[in-house]
């Protein structure tokens, strides 16, 4: 993995290159490519969650600005970039509704080697892509239930279903990344 913009994983771009360029060089062109891809999706997510177009535009800009400001916090061995952006957008959506900051787990401090192994990060990105395809293959009713949960249309008591998705490999991979991080912290 050098610096080729055209590097691909499984049909999708490897966004880790752009986010590293933003983090290391404050590269506005790389940020613009991230914006082109993610901003319309984040705005769509917020509108699906009940925001008006102007609220969605405002919150989306804040989400994308957060991506820039916190680019040093992104750990590609624990989340794909789409996952990380989802968590920022979700938190902003909730903060907007509650008008307070949502409780989030404590982040793990960085060890002496903050750059995770590329192979791990790439495998996790590929597994998140595969998860997207697995969602598409679910029966309609099952897929809609998951979408409604994630787009803010189900209450906590309505979330008592199995996703039917193979999440175990992603969980195991994140678990290994956490163990590596914990070893560095000792």
């Amino acid at each position, binding site marked *: 993995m050098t610096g080729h913009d055209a590097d691909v994983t499984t049909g999708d771009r490897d966004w880790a290159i752009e986010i590293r360029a933003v983090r290391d060089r404050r590269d506005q062109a790389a940020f613009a490519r991230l914006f082109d891809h993610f901003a319309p999706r984040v*705005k769509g997510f917020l509108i699906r969650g009940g925001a008006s177009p102007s609220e969605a*535009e405002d919150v989306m*800009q804040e989400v994308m600005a957060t991506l820039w400001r*916190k680019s040093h916090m992104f750990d590609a061995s624990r989340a794909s970039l789409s996952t990380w952006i989802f*968590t920022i957008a979700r938190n902003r*959506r909730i903060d907007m509704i509650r008008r307070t900051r949502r409780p989030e787990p404590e982040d793990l401090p960085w060890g002496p080697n903050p750059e995770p192994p590329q192979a791990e990060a790439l495998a996790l990105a590929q597994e998140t892509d595969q998860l997207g395809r697995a969602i598409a293959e679910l029966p309609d009713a099952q897929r809609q239930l998951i979408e409604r949960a994630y787009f803010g249309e189900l209450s*906590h008591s309505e*979330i008592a279903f199995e996703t039917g998705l193979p999440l175990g490999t992603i969980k195991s991979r994140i678990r290994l990344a956490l163990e590596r991080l914990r070893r560095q912290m000792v």
Partner: protein
Amino acid sequence: MHDIRHHLSDALLLGHAAGALSEAFDLVVATHVSVCDDCRAKLGAYDALGGALLEDMPETAPASGSLAATLDRLPAEPPAAPAADADATFPEPLRRAVGGDLSSVRWRRIGGGVAQAVLTRDKDGASVRLLRIPAGVAVPDHGHNGAELTLVLRGAFHDEVDSFGRGDVEIADPALSHQPVAARGEDCICLAATDAPLRFNAFLPRLAQGLFGI
């Protein structure tokens, strides 16, 4: 850290990832995940599900000039991340909710030597509180109109179901009526969230319910 035996359910982790929990439950989940890498990894998988859904989201075009407006919001330098505090008793999400560590908690006695500090209470009846139960003492026998989550921060307790040590979470459904008793040796400090008011089973504790403020 004591080996955690009682973890969060998949429904709670998915609910936290999806953003469907009350603030009270979010605080218990975030605090447990801060000390439990098994649940952190599972939560990461449910977050990845959100990431996959975002990737597939129908696009809504940003307003014209949106990218420039976003760049205008950026500060010149990123603010430094808050430092982790290795000496703290409470994980960071709980310190934020309390406004400090264990020494900053403003306890109110509620009878029998038990003390509590209500942290948040929302309009739907969900609330989250810290409880301090002296070693060997029982909390009044109670049931729940909704679910109750109890996370042990220090010490241990046992009830009709099992025993719970530091880091363990008890997930009590509305059908469970129980009487937690703090283990001997050390006061038990718990973070407890309910999504509806508690029901006390004896007459006197029902009077105490007013004191509990729930």
